[in-house]
């Protein structure tokens, strides 16, 4: 197991390195110099040159790249071109919005999807089993921002139950308002995510229902429900956990979109603003940290899968 974790860790670091190289290259392919965006229309050539020197964008690409890798190795994401604040500070503040949003939405999606998915599988031939499948199919087709707009329209503008967007100035120091401003975004993401999760759970349960071990358990006298709970859940979970890594990354990306709809000060708005302003350090920082988080979830999901499935643990590679 330890050997596996180490191997997996090496793959993670290697992927991160490749991502860093690709990000650096892609950002430099964008037309336009950040110095122009910084000093604005009307600046003199001298002002632009000064801004370039200050930002280091006048240096050769090779030198910029080596400096960037060196900083990354020291966990230094640099300073924003625009705000001059350390990138890591802003990311930390914004992750305090995006991460809770992601995990709350994902948790809620699991709470909705697991029981409904199992129900849809067990009662696959009943009308409500079918109805659940249809609803989840529709759910997958709904764009997350559109659902967000609909929920705002109903629960904020019409019923006036919840704020339409924004985040309190004092953040979590103002817990009631912070939670209120998270409710609609969390529900928005959870609905869309639970639709696809439900389909995975349903498929996994159907597979378990048709398996030999379940038939054996029933032959030994266990009821179908009892057999499903005792033997089926863990077996089904192996399949579901393998997609969780991908699903949680999708949730994270959904959060980035939903933040825009609800004006939440998270990673999404930081990324969009950074791109508009050619704020390379901010954009790089957001993308690197997002990549790291996605790779890390994949890593943890793989390990969780091994822990759940003794067959995989035995495997030697």
């Amino acid at each position, binding site marked *: 197991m330890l050997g596996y974790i180490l191997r997996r860790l090496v793959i993670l670091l290697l992927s991160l390195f490749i991502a860093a190289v690709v990000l650096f290259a892609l950002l430099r392919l964008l037309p336009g110099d950040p110095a*122009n965006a910084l000093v604005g229309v009307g*600046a*003199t050539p001298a*002002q632009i040159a000064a801004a370039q020197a200050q930002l280091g964008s006048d240096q050769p690409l090779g030198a910029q790249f080596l400096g960037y890798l060196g900083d990354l190795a020291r966990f230094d994401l640099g300073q924003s071109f625009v705000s001059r604040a350390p990138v890591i500070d802003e990311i930390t503040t*914004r992750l305090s919005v995006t991460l809770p949003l992601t995990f709350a939405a994902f948790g809620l999606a699991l709470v909705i999807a697991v029981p409904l998915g199992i129900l849809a599988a067990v009662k696959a031939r009943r009308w409500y089993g079918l109805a659940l499948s249809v609803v989840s199919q529709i759910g997958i087709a709904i764009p997350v921002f559109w659902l967000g707009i609909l929920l705002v329209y109903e629960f904020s503008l019409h019923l006036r139950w919840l704020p*339409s967007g924004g985040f309190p100035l004092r953040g979590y120091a103002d817990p009631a308002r912070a939670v209120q401003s998270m409710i609609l975004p969390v529900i928005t993401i959870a609905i869309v995510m639970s639709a696809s999760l439900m389909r995975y759970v349903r498929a996994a349960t159907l597979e378990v229902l048709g398996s030999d071990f379940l038939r054996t358990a029933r032959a030994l006298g266990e009821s179908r429900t009892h057999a499903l709970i005792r033997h089926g859940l863990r077996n089904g979970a192996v399949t579901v956990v393998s997609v969780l890594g991908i699903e949680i990354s999708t949730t994270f990306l959904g959060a980035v979109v939903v933040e825009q709809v609800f*004006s939440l000060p998270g990673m999404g708005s930081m990324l969009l603003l950074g791109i508009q302003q050619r704020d390379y350090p901010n954009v790089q920082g957001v993308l690197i940290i997002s990549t790291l988080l996605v790779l890390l979830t994949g890593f943890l999901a793989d390990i969780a899968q091994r822990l759940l499935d003794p067959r995989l643990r035995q495997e030697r590679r």
Partner: protein
Amino acid sequence: MHFRIDHAQARGRTLLMAMTSVSALTLGAVCAMAQDVDPQAVVNIGSLYEPQNLDNTAGAGQGINEAFNGNVYEGLFVLTDAGDVEPKLVDSYTTSDDGLVYTFTLKDGVTFHSGDPMTAADVKTSIERVTAEGSASSRKSTLDVIDKIEAPDDKTVVITLKTASISLPYNLSYVWIVNDAAEDISASEDGTGPYMLQEWRRGSALAMVPFDAYWGEAPSNGGVMFQYFTDATAQNNALLTGAVDIITSVQTPDALARFADNPDFTISEGASTTKELLAYNDRVAPFDNVEVRAALSKAVDKQKLLRAVWGDYGTLIGSFVPPTDPWFVDLTDVNAYDPDAAKQMLAEAGYPDGFTFTLDTPNYDPHPIVAQFLQNELAKVGVEVKINIITANEWYTKIYKAHDFQATLQEHVNHRDIVFYGNPDFYWGYNNPEVTRLITQSEAAPDTDTQTDMLRDANEMIAQDAASMWLYLYPQIVVSTSNVTGYPLNGLNSQFFAADITKAD
């Protein structure tokens, strides 16, 4: 000229009340008195322009002017919402006969938020912050004319110029007076204004509270919170649900219908300084020909364009000068819409069958729509427009820097920017020696009346020359809940003075 639309009148959408912004504000104040004004109420302002940092010399963007000018920081002079330049931290000043030496006497009893008194040394370092080598202030070049700044005593500042500059007080209205003990002001502040920064949460909101030791009149509210949105719809929703009391500038007319028919909201229209224009490259044929430019101007029904883009809002302009500039004069009759005359003029200029040109069009609103409209209008007089969509960055490199274009669309936002027509090296390459002379010499005018006369002449000349095609002036629309009054209508230089805003229960 300012317009204010009352919600009741907006229902009919016909009656516009014309009044000066001063009387509009007075009227607003009277209305608010009728209800119970709460002097402790915090006013929540929704805005799309979050500052990138808190230092206006470090690329903070227009959002910092909106939040801080006149609220947290003050200048020696202030550009009022009506467009006048008035003394603020200056008690009085004198100018030498040759116009080269300005001697300013500072107001007594002004203190910074940190408690330090304001002295002449603070003023000197504040101006030098803007002119410093590393400064990214967009106003830097306007202060190039300064030769030296001296502070002979705590209350006196002497500025010596290289050449006479009647606009110095105006240009100084853009310079914040910052405590010279404050070093980095990109995340904190130390100004003299009626409000102190309370807290700023990046991406979310910025709160200010009244400064107890303010030298002037105390604010008529209990503080201000700017809430920032990245999406106009989210901003409008916040106003509809009462999360904010005012939104500072509405960028499209689409959303206004939701507020126009609702007595809970007030829509106010002021005069902006943002001009939508088709800029020809006046250096290249056929646009080096005044007749051609004038003909194209006559070929376009600008009223129809304005209605298409802004509905009932916005104003037509006959030149580059907005109504809040002192040298404004109504020139909409010059080269006014007359397609038949346009055809004839084109024929006389040697283009009886018209011609074809490429219009470099920035890829963001409203330019693509405007380009299509112009394409239709000009086709009617035989001129074919090829629309070439470009990004803001391409615009900057290809047009602004390289002058490599035939014609382009752009919005120009600044106040008092007719001076661009006095610079033959500017991107549009307009070169009329008489206009250049008037604009250059107006800076050396002995008094503002002479300056105004000279620039008015220049203004009329560029209109006659059809130097560019000035399409319309954007409206400046502020929407608020109807219990909030006293906010600025014109928002010149993106400023949003908050101290007079009152909120009733």
